[in-house]
């Protein structure tokens, strides 16, 4: 029986750059949400939470920009497309939602994914990507 072929190496720098762009877009979407007019108005404490999430998301984007995660991305290569897809979907949902609780849930879940990627634990990354997908589907 033929052995399975090894995975094709990815362009880690390009992948890290794409993740940085995705997290930056999500951060911007959160800022746009909190600065927009909502009816009823969003309570101040929730706006503050959204601001914190947006900034933490931006921190992740900086980390990815520094391309410090090449090795991690290599280890989750089979799930990379899914990770990028759910992150992009999170941003899309934030731009159309009016429910601040749901936006905060998505931001929290996406941030967990970013933190897992930065920590470099493949199992945690895959679990966090799955959790974000569930949050989006709820």
């Amino acid at each position, binding site marked *: 029986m033929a052995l399975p072929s090894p995975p094709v190496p990815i362009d880690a720098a390009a992948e890290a750059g794409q993740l940085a762009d995705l997290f*930056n877009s999500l951060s911007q979407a959160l800022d746009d949400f909190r*600065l927009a007019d909502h009816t009823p108005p969003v309570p101040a404490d929730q706006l503050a939470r959204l601001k914190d999430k947006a900034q933490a998301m*931006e921190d992740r984007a*900086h980390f990815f*920009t520094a391309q*410090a995660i090449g090795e991690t991305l290599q280890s989750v290569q089979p799930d990379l497309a899914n990770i990028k897809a759910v992150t992009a979907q999170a941003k899309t949902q934030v731009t159309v939602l009016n429910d601040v609780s749901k936006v905060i849930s998505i931001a929290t879940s996406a941030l967990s994914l970013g933190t897992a990627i930065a920590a470099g634990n493949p199992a945690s990354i895959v679990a966090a990507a799955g959790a974000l997908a569930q949050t989006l589907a709820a």
Partner: protein
Amino acid sequence: MTLFPRMRVVANLNEMRRSLSADTLQEDLMPRASRDLACLVAVLVLPLVNCTTPDEVSKFCVSASTTLTSASVVFDDMKLSCLREVNSRDEFGTFRPPVQSDENCNAIGDQAVGAAAAAKVLSDYFSAINSLASFGTAKAGTNAQSLLSKTGAAVGESSSAQTALGSIAQFLVSAATSGYQRRQLEKDLPKVSANVSAVVSALITIVHDDYIDRQLGSEEQKLAVRYREFAKDKSPEIKLLLDDRWHADEQALAAKRASAQSLITALQSLSKGFADLAANAHQLRAKEVSGLLGPYATQLQALIPQIQKGF
């Protein structure tokens, strides 16, 4: 290019033969064997002492080296832009001193230091070529291996650019320690040209994708958020004042983008000029070298102040 234009060498050789035969090497003063040996020595030494240095090679290399040195202002601003962005999270009027350090900005700073180190390796390479073209040997002294330990953070430890940097660093060390001479250069140029191109390409990606698009783009977005947040529910007068300040900030960012774009243009020119030089290393005469490299050197010299303008 020929670093030892054949016509000049032949002319000089003939001149020396005439001189030799007129003076000390007359038939009646020197035995035939000694005379032949003297001619042989003259033939071997002539290319090293009498070749004409094409000024344009030197001019091009100096311009390339200066361009690469001036790139440091762009790389330095990668971390500074990140810190400006972090500081823009404070609302106007909080009057807190700006943070000077941030974990994630430091990671970007490490990448920037790596990019600057890669530029320095290339700059040292062009200085060595200039030295070879001007004096016949590369000047001693390089910290190429030390620089190489930093470049992986910017171009990737296992990337083709890092391999290329390793090759260039090896050349620099060997040029400094083994008396590398310019006649070896013509042979090596095509090989090194591919390495220069790989490193330049990686630097352009960092400047374009990571700095202009990603970092400055993100800084601009967050700056806009800061203004929008503060302007909410403010009077039209205050909004007009903020608008003026926003445009000033925008101009500063545009100037940085323009400078970085000038660096990209310069890097492209430098790479193309060097590739042309390498491709024609065995074919061109001094006058043709001048025609080939002159426009590149002129363009680089014009771009250097533009690179520094925005900082």
